[in-house]
């Protein structure tokens, strides 16, 4: 293997690599984002504990939903994404609709990531001190309000490193989606290697590009993590300063007296 040959391949096939990078990033980013949303929903639902006073029907509905979600998580964590991709792609293609490969790829990576995210969010929720929940409920907030305002924001913060990890995993593992011939980086690399017959050099370049993408992601994720450790609440903020409120209050008291 010669480094100069590597450089030659990179420059000569740069547009092809670039297309691969673009597709990989689109698939990985949207897949992680949609996966996170799925995870929040599934993990959130699974973490909800019904009040002891809840009706029997509600308890049964909850148990059934929990069961379905558990099966979803087990199936998608327990089978390779490559198999999921071909199976789901052809299943839909031959039986339902001749769908776009790119759409199929994002669909598969999203539900696959969602299964992992659901468990990440659930453990993030479980790591939130139960006292937070009790305090919120004791103020009269509903289970849903408590989840949205108190528990989930803290759970996401707890789980952020693991959520970021999923993005990095997806940048790399989206390579298996070449099985349904989307133009992501691995698929492009295979074509280039097939053209040049320089397998070692081509895949070395590929590896370096993956490493570059994941390193940049790590840096960004670390910066974001620092940032969210200082974020404020989602409640709308007013522009009123404490002093002006206190002055207004004193004024009102004065008038009242």
């Amino acid at each position, binding site marked *: 293997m010669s480094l100069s040959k590597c450089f030659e391949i990179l420059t000569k096939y740069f547009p092809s690599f670039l297309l691969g990078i673009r597709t990989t990033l689109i698939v990985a980013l949207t897949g992680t984002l949609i996966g996170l949303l799925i995870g929040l929903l599934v993990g959130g639902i699974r973490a909800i504990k019904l*009040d002891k006073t809840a009706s029997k029907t509600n308890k049964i509905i909850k148990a059934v939903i929990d069961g379905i979600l558990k099966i979803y998580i087990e199936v998608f964590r327990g089978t390779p994404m490559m198999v999921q991709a071909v199976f789901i792609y052809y299943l839909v293609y031959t039986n339902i609709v001749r769908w776009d490969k790119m759409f199929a790829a994002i669909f598969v990576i999203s539900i696959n990531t969602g299964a992992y995210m659901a468990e990440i969010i659930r453990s993030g929720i479980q790591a939130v*001190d139960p006292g937070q929940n*009790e*305090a*919120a409920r004791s*103020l009269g*907030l509903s289970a849903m309000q408590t989840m949205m*305002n*108190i528990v989930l924001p803290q759970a996401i913060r707890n789980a952020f490193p693991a959520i970021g990890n999923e993005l990095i995993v997806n940048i790399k593992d989206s390579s298996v989606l070449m099985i349904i011939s989307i133009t992501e980086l691995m698929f492009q690399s295979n074509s280039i290697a097939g053209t040049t017959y320089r397998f070692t050099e081509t895949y070395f370049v590929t590896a370096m590009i993956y490493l570059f993408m994941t390193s940049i992601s790590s840096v960004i994720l670390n910066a974001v993590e620092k940032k969210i450790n200082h974020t404020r609440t989602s*409640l709308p903020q007013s522009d009123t300063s404490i002093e002006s409120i206190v002055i207004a209050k004193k004024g009102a008291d004065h008038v009242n007296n």
Partner: protein
Amino acid sequence: MSIIEVKNVRKSFGNNLVLSDISFNVEKGQVVCLIGPSGSGKSTMLRCLNLLEDIDEGEIIVLSQDINKISDINSYREKVGMVFQQFNLFNNMNVLDNCVLAQMKVLKKERKEAEMIALEHLDNVGMKDFAYAYPSTLSGGQKQRVAIARALCMNPEIMLFDEPTSALDPEMVGEVLNVIKDLANKHMTMVVVTHEMGFARDVADKVIFMDDGLVLEEGKPQQIFNNPQNERTKQFLSRVLQADL
């Protein structure tokens, strides 16, 4: 008429019987202190009053309704403030938002109005200047004072205190007890689980001594502290009061 009536309450966690047969009343404006050794069921009793635990048998009537039969738990809880041993301030919000959140979400108040009420209560507990501080930057005593202000923002009719000073450094106990004493002077109805015997003696209208899930003795503080009738009460008080010196 009593604002809280607890009648023959029984509660167990699995095989562990925590409350065997508890009955007591709280009148409007009264301060009632629950005292007794650890594991006697005081905190569990208090948590039952706010429906954080449900009871197996008996009845709890608060504000003229059987609380274990009401359908809207949230609107009941909004009338009964609770302060916890571990403060439980919302870690993802600053002090002001801790006090504003439930006012906006439960009482549907405008932000401005909620802030005004919050700052008034924070001012009363001496925490107004910390309105934009996050809980992680506060001392235990400060957190507990904010927690009390947060509960008061809901304008509750009853306040429940679950060992409010047990997790504090000794030097911070005073500042929190003073806030609770102020509330007592304003005739807030309060049920306080406490190990602070001095506080119970000075502030309580009624002291209830619990052990092993039973009320062994209840009465005015002078009566309980100076002239306890029950052997177990005598034993407990002599140990605790000795430790106080």
